[in-house]
């Protein structure tokens, strides 16, 4: 699944570690999600959307 996490993070000048701390997950988790290698659960996707004050659809898009 494609996502705009890197862009959203850059807009706020957050490192992967900063985002991980805010989400209460490991930096490896953020990296895996950001690179599209790991799809987050719905609760984590909602947490991301709340954190970036946007919708899940604005962060994630179905590749197909």
């Amino acid at each position, binding site marked *: 699944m494609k996502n705009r996490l890197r862009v959203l993070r850059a807009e706020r000048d957050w490192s992967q570690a900063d985002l991980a701390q805010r989400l*209460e*997950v*490991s930096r*490896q*988790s953020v*990296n*895996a*999600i950001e690179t599209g*290698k*790991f799809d*987050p*659960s719905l609760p*984590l996707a909602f947490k991301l959307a709340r954190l970036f004050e946007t919708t899940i659809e604005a962060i994630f898009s179905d590749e197909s």
Partner: protein
Amino acid sequence: MICSIKSPVERRYVIRMWIMAALCVLFSLLAVVVFRHGHPHGIVSYLVAVLPALPIMGVLVYTGVYLAEEKDEFQRNLLVQSLLGGTGGILAVITAWGYMEDLAHAPHMDLIWVYPLFWLFAGISYGLVRARYR
């Protein structure tokens, strides 16, 4: 995982693993001493012989507790995939070895090897799974 412990849950898991490992060594030595000097028999011998297996069961229980306590779904996913790799690996080896023993008269493999081999395969799986997400 051990070299980069971050969360309290992970730290607790590693501490519990070390305690179980220490208990395993202690109980193994105790069982050997009891069998060498006490010569137990009957139900007592079974109870003494099973002592070193108790911390091993503890490791499995605490691994389940870790999976229940860990909030980071990615880390949970890594461990679950590693455990599946470990289970698949050991099942493949003991099944293949069973056929080799039955049909080709290969030397008998002691069941005591199943547990360390499971963790060996789980460790290899963990490395492979981590590499995939890098």
